[in-house]
C-alpha cells in the first residue's frame, strides 16, 4: 500500500531547498561548527535529555534494554573470568534465594494443581470445555480472566510473514507464522470482497470476534499488530496497541524498510509488546458469593442428611424395642422392619384379644411411627381360652366360673335347659376348651323341661361319667386303708356320684358304678386278691355316708395286676355303666 501524502524523498528535497535558500553557502560553515562542538553540546545535555524522554514516553528504556542485554552477553563471553570473580560472593545468596523462591513456587503450583485438578469446579470446567470443544486451558482463561491478552503477533504487512510474537502460553507460539500469514490472507480476502468502488481506501479488518475470543488488528504502514484477547476487551487496550505499533515503527524503521524475510532484528521488540500482554482476573466477590451459596447448599444437604440419619436411627431403636417386647397371650410378633419412614410390624392376633395398637400404647410405644399389619389366628393358649370362657360366662346371669390350682374349670349356678344347651354349645366351640376340663355339675337346671333334652343328657351325664371314670386312688404297699388324701378325693367323688344318681333318676337311667380294687404282684395271688377286694370295699364304705345309693356300687377285687410298673397296680379305679332306656343299651365310660 502506498502513502497518500508526500513521499519521504520529496519531503527531504523540500527541506534541502529551504535550507539552501536560507543559509546559502554558510551552510558548510555551520555544519563544521556544529560537528566540532557536537560532543560538548550533546555531552552537556545527554543525561537530562535521556531522563526527560524516559519520563515522557518510556522509550529510552525500550531502546536500551536490548542494547544492554546484547552488551552484557558480549561482555560475559569476552571476560567470563572477571565476571565470575565479581559475582562469586553473590552466588551463595543468589542460590539460597533461588532455591527458596523455587520451593515457594513449587508449593503454590502444587496447591494450584490440586485445586485445578481435583476440585469439583475443575471437573465441571473440564466437562464444559469438552462440551464446547475448546482446550481446557482456554476455557479456564475465559472463566478466570475478565479479559486476557493471550498472544501478540507483529506481522510484516507486505509479505504476511511473522516478525515477532509473544504469548502468555509458550505452546501457542508454535504455529504463529502460519497463523500470521493466514490472518493477512483473510485481510486480503476481506479487502477484495468488500472493496469500495467509490473510495480508493481499502476495507481492512480491525477486529475479528468469535464468542468470547477477539482478534484486535492494528494496521500500520509496514507492520500489523494483532492481539488475541479472551473475555471482554477493555477500552484502553486499543490505544495501547496503537501506541505499541507506533513505537515499533519508530524503533524498527530501518529493519522494516530493509526487511528481506529475516526476523532476527525484531527479537528485541518484546519489551515493547510486554506492555500490551495484559490481563485482569474476574472479581473474587462473585466467586465468594458463589462459594457462599455453594457452601449454604452443601450445609443444607448435610443437615438434611443428618436429620434423615437421625430419623433412621430413631426408627431402628423403636424397631428394636418393639422386637424385644413380650407380646400378650393371643398375639404373636412375626416380623418388624423399617420402611417408608415407619416401623412396619407384622403380627398374628387372636381376634378375641385386645387390639395390638392398645397393646403397643400400653408399652409406651409411639404408635404414630408404627404401621401394623395384622393377620388373624386362633390361639390355644390356656390364658386365651380362660379369657374366652370368662367372656362367655359374664353374658349369662347367675353363672359362675371357678378355676382350681390346675386351671380346671368348674361352673356353678342355675339356668334353664335351653340356656344350658346354648351355653354348652358355645363352650364346646371354644378352641382348646378341653384343656380346662370343664365341669358343669355345679349348674342347677331350673326348668323341668330339661329332662326331655338329649343334649343336656349328653352334656351333664357324660361329663360326670367321664370325671368319675377318670378317678383312681393309689395305695401304699400292702395297704388297704384310706389315708387323708384319698378321703379328700373320695369326698369330691361322693358329690359327683350323688349328682349322677340324682340325674339318672330324673332321666330314668340305670347306673352301675364298678369300684375296681387291684394290687401289685408282690406276695401271693390269694393274698393279693383279698387285698384288692378290701381296697374296693373300703372305698365303697367311704362313699356311703355321702348319700350315695349302695345299690349302684359294685366293689370288685381284681387281684394282682402284672404291670411293668408295680406301683401302678396298687390302686382302686372306677368304671360307670349307664343304661339307655330307649335302646336298652348300656353306655360305658
Amino acid at each position, binding site marked *: 500500500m502506498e502513502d497518500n501524502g508526500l513521499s519521504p524523498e520529496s519531503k527531504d528535497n523540500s527541506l534541502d531547498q529551504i535550507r539552501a535558500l536560507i543559509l546559502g553557502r554558510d551552510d558548510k560553515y555551520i555544519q563544521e561548527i556544529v560537528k566540532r562542538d557536537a560532543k560538548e553540546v550533546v555531552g552537556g545535555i545527554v543525561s537530562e535529555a535521556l531522563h526527560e524522554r524516559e519520563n515522557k514516553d518510556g522509550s529510552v528504556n525500550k531502546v536500551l534494554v536490548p542494547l544492554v542485554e546484547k552488551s552484557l552477553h558480549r561482555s560475559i563471553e569476552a571476560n567470563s573470568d572477571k565476571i565470575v570473580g565479581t559475582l562469586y560472593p553473590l552466588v551463595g545468596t543468589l542460590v539460597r534465594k533461588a532455591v527458596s523462591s523455587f520451593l515457594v513456587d513449587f508449593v503454590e503450583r502444587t496447591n494450584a494443581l490440586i485445586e485445578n485438578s481435583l476440585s469439583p469446579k475443575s471437573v465441571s470446567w473440564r466437562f464444559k470445555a469438552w462440551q464446547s470443544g475448546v482446550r481446557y486451558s482456554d476455557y479456564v482463561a475465559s472463566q478466570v480472566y475478565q479479559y486476557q491478552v493471550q498472544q501478540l503477533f507483529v506481522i510484516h504487512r*507486505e509479505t*504476511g510473514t511473522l516478525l515477532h510474537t509473544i504469548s502468555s502460553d509458550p505452546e501457542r507460539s508454535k504455529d504463529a*507464522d502460519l497463523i500470521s*500469514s493466514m490472518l493477512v490472507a483473510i485481510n*486480503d480476502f476481506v*479487502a*477484495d470482497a468488500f472493496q469500495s468502488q467509490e473510495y480508493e481506501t481499502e476495507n481492512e479488518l480491525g477486529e475479528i470476534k468469535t464468542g468470547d475470543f477477539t482478534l484486535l488488528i492494528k494496521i500500520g504502514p509496514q507492520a500489523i499488530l494483532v492481539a488475541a484477547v479472551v473475555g471482554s476487551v477493555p477500552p484502553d487496550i486499543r490505544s495501547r496497541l496503537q501506541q505499541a505499533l507506533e513505537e515499533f515503527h519508530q524503533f524498527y524503521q530501518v529493519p522494516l524498510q530493509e526487511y528481506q524475510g*529475516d526476523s532476527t532484528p525484531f527479537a528485541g521488540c518484546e519489551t515493547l509488546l510486554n506492555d500490551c500482554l495484559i490481563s485482569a482476573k474476574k472479581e473474587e466477590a462473585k466467586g465468594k458469593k458463589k462459594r457462599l451459596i455453594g457452601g449454604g447448599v452443601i450445609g443444607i444437604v448435610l443437615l438434611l442428611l443428618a436429620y434423615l440419619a437421625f430419623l433412621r436411627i430413631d426408627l431402628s431403636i423403636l424397631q428394636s424395642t418393639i422386637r424385644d417386647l413380650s407380646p400378650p397371650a393371643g398375639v404373636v410378633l412375626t416380623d418388624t422392619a423399617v420402611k417408608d419412614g415407619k416401623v412396619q410390624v407384622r403380627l398374628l392376633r387372636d381376634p378375641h384379644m385386645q387390639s395390638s395398637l392398645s397393646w403397643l400404647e400400653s408399652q409406651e410405644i409411639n404408635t404414630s411411627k408404627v404401621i401394623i399389619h395384622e393377620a388373624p389366628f386362633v390361639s390355644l393358649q390356656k390364658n386365651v381360652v380362660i379369657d374366652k370362657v370368662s367372656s362367655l360366662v359374664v353374658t349369662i346371669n347367675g353363672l359362675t366360673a371357678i378355676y382350681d390350682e390346675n386351671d380346671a374349670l368348674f361352673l356353678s349356678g342355675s339356668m334353664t335347659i335351653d340356656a344350658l344347651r346354648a351355653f354348652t354349645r358355645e363352650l364346646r366351640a371354644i378352641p382348646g376348651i378341653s384343656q380346662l376340663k370343664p365341669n358343669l355339675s355345679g349348674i342347677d337346671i331350673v326348668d323341668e323341661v330339661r329332662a326331655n333334652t338329649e343334649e343336656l343328657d349328653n352334656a351333664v351325664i357324660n361329663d360326670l361319667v367321664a370325671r368319675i371314670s377318670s378317678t383312681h386312688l393309689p395305695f401304699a404297699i400292702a395297704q388297704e386303708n384310706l389315708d387323708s388324701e384319698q378321703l379328700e378325693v373320695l369326698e369330691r367323688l361322693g358329690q359327683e356320684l350323688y349328682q349322677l344318681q340324682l340325674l339318672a333318676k330324673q332321666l330314668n337311667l340305670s347306673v352301675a358304678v364298678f369300684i375296681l380294687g387291684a394290687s401289685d404282684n408282690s406276695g401271693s395271688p390269694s393274698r393279693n386278691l383279698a387285698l384288692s377286694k378290701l381296697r374296693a370295699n373300703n372305698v365303697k364304705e367311704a362313699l356311703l355316708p355321702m348319700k350315695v345309693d349302695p345299690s349302684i356300687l359294685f366293689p370288685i377285687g381284681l387281684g394282682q395286676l402284672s404291670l411293668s410298673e408295680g406301683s401302678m397296680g396298687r390302686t382302686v379305679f372306677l368304671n360307670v355303666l349307664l343304661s339307655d332306656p330307649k335302646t336298652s343299651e348300656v353306655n360305658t365310660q
Partner: protein
Amino acid sequence: MIQKKVCILGPTGVGKTSLVKQFVESIFSEKYKTTIGVKIDKKQVNKDGRGVQLLLWDLEGIDRYCGFNPRYLRGASAYIIVVDQTRSQSLLEGIEILEMAREHYPDIPAFFVVNKTDLPSSWHWSEEELDSYAKKFTSLTKTSAKTGENVENLFSTIAFW
C-alpha cells in the same frame, strides 16, 4: 531464520495442492481454500547449514472466467505457475495467469512447473515450443506430485534463489 512467501498458481486440476502436499506441514484444513481462495502451509528448507522457511500460499484453481485476488501475491518472494502436460489448454491458461500476475507484480520471479510427468505427455506442444514459453519465466521445472520427482528440488531452488 529467513522467511519467504511463495504463491502457487495455476488452472484447476493441474495438481497444485498435490504438489504442496508432497512436502509440507499443515495446520489448516482444505476448506479455507474454498472459502477465501487460499490455504497456507509452511516448510523449512535447509542447505549448506542455512535454513529458509517457505510459507506456501496455495491459491485455488484459476480459469478464464474467474481470476484471482492479486493481493495474495503481494510481498511474495516468488510464485509458481503449474500446468498439466496431459492438457494442452492448461499451458495457455498458465500463460494467461502469468500475464495477469506480471501486470500487478512484474518483478517477482515466476517459476514454471510442468506437472504430472509420471503420465505420458499428451499435449501437442513440442519441446521447442515449450522452451519458448518457458523463456517468459524465471525457470522451468518438470515435476510429478505423484512420485515426488523434482518436487524437493523445485522448492529448494526457490528457497535459495
